[in-house]
């Protein structure tokens, strides 16, 4: 895509997103969750797509951010907005710290062992939260009431999550275009080679997970307040739903690309909402079928398929040096 067209598309999408609450007020919350889904897919793809470490446990950072924020809001006694700000910061800090600690151990696991360990991590967090009385155990936590008119809360969090999505997208775009992106791609393609070239793989891997955890932590804090109620297994540490959806959305759109997760999340979220509306009761059966179909028939994803089909469009073409260079052979 030429740069100007890409920029126009981006601006158009942002304008559309800003106008959406007035265009389709009835779907405000659903679209808010679309932003959440896009953040899920984008942050999963940092490790899963760009670095080759398939994590089923990223939802832990989401949940930790959510609980961290809710505890601050409950216990500091501040007004709503200061408490929310502090809570989001604390939630993010907690998530990043956790990622740094866990990462130093878990990121030394390779291949499917990492996937399974993170799967275990996700479930352990959910079970642990359901047992811990300080955060409400199995009955969960309720976040403070939003101080405003009915409907204001939805608008506030709509724009907050939209802003988060945009920031996530641009931060990742910036990171992927620099050394960081190159290094984690190198780790994905051949970690032994990357080590043999002297790359500080552990530093890069841990940083990548921390970036992922940061955005998930902030998002978790916001989502806890949007929903208003935190259930340990179904909202915060929802491994079998959110945790797996992240993976699926990124794969569906094309993992290892910037736009793939955005595209995948959009398609998946709309499909999911349609299931919910038209297949009541059977929506989760349909979900299982969708997972199978994506994995079996679309392992490359939409953008991955397009890149396979038209490599030149993605810049992979033979290109001679314009000036007559001195060939060494």
């Amino acid at each position, binding site marked *: 895509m030429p740069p100007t067209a890409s920029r126009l598309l981006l601006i158009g999408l942002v304008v559309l997103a800003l106008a959406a609450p007035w265009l389709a007020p009835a779907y405000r919350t659903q679209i808010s969750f679309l932003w959440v889904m896009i953040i899920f897919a984008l942050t999963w793809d940092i490790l899963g797509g760009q670095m080759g470490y398939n994590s089923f446990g990223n939802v832990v950072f989401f949940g930790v951010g959510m609980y961290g924020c809710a505890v601050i809001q409950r216990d500091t006694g501040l007004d709503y907005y200061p408490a929310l700000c502090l809570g989001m910061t604390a939630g993010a800090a907690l998530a990043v710290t956790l990622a740094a600690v866990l990462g130093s151990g878990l990121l030394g696991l390779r291949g499917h062992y990492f996937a399974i360990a993170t799967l275990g991590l996700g479930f352990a967090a959910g079970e642990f939260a359901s047992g811990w009385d300080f955060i409400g155990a199995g009955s969960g936590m309720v976040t403070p009431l939003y101080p405003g008119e009915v409907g204001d809360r939805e608008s506030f969090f709509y724009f907050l999550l939209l802003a988060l999505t945009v920031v996530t997208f641009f931060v990742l775009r910036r990171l992927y275009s620099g050394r960081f992106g190159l290094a984690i791609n190198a780790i994905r393609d051949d970690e032994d*080679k990357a080590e043999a070239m002297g*790359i500080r793989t552990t530093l890069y891997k841990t940083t990548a997970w921390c970036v992922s955890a940061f955005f998930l932590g902030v998002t978790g804090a916001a989502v806890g307040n949007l929903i208003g109620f935190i259930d340990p297994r179904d909202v915060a540490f929802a491994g079998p739903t959110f945790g797996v959806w992240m993976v699926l959305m990124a794969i569906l759109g094309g993992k290892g690309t910037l736009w793939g997760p955005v595209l995948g999340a959009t398609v998946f979220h709309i499909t999911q909402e349609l299931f919910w509306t038209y297949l009541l009761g059977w929506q989760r059966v349909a979900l299982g079928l969708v997972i199978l179909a994506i994995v079996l028939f679309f392992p490359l994803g939409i953008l991955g398929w397009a890149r396979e089909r038209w490599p030149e469009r993605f810049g*992979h073409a033979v290109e001679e040096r314009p000036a007559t260079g001195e060939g060494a052979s």
Partner: protein
Amino acid sequence: MKPILEVERVRKTFGGVVANNDITLEVPEGKIVGLIGPNGSGKTTLFNSIVGYHVIDGGSVRFDGREISELRVPRIARRGLLRTFQQTRIYGKMTCLENMLISVPQRDQTWLSILRKPPAADESKAEDLLEFVGLYAKRRLLAGELSFGQQKLLEFGMALMNEPRMLLLDEPTAGINPTLINGLMHRLRRVNEELAITLFVIEHNMSVIMSLAEYIYCLAHGELLAQGRPDEIQADQRVIDAYLGAH
């Protein structure tokens, strides 16, 4: 001239199999030294022992006068001792240019600099080196789509991008089209002379190693069998027997 690499009584066993037994050798700075031996004589194992790929069971490895046998692969690489792989290894899903850009020296990189964009100087250096190995036109292609020989050249270019002081090359001419071998040898010599990179080369192609190296070590059955100048090695009856016996 003082040796840049000193390997002293290095021993490595896998289970009961002795892959390297009491191997002692040294590589003088700025030279090209060869390592030959029949298949299974422990050449690649010795390379792996030197660059820290596995723990050695005994002996010492010194690079530039400092002990490195306790260090791991990335740290040794950052000190300027780099290796290429027999089964060529490149980053297949990245373009050739990206392969080069990420191969810059990692010595002075800090946590902040990894978040930065690669400077323009890196890019022009990468393009020059790609031109040097003859891959400039393919720089926007995915490295995994190159032929085996081209991947080998790319790996060589990546190693140069890393500005090592010494390069361990594991069979640089294996799998390369015979008509291109002379060009590759020419490049190896230029790298040695112009960039002052010491080369330590495993090679099966006798005519290549005899004309390239100034000094040659020969391994057989995990032990050092012979050493000397190429003409001495060529005349050494033990070396001839080892090769004939192995085939």
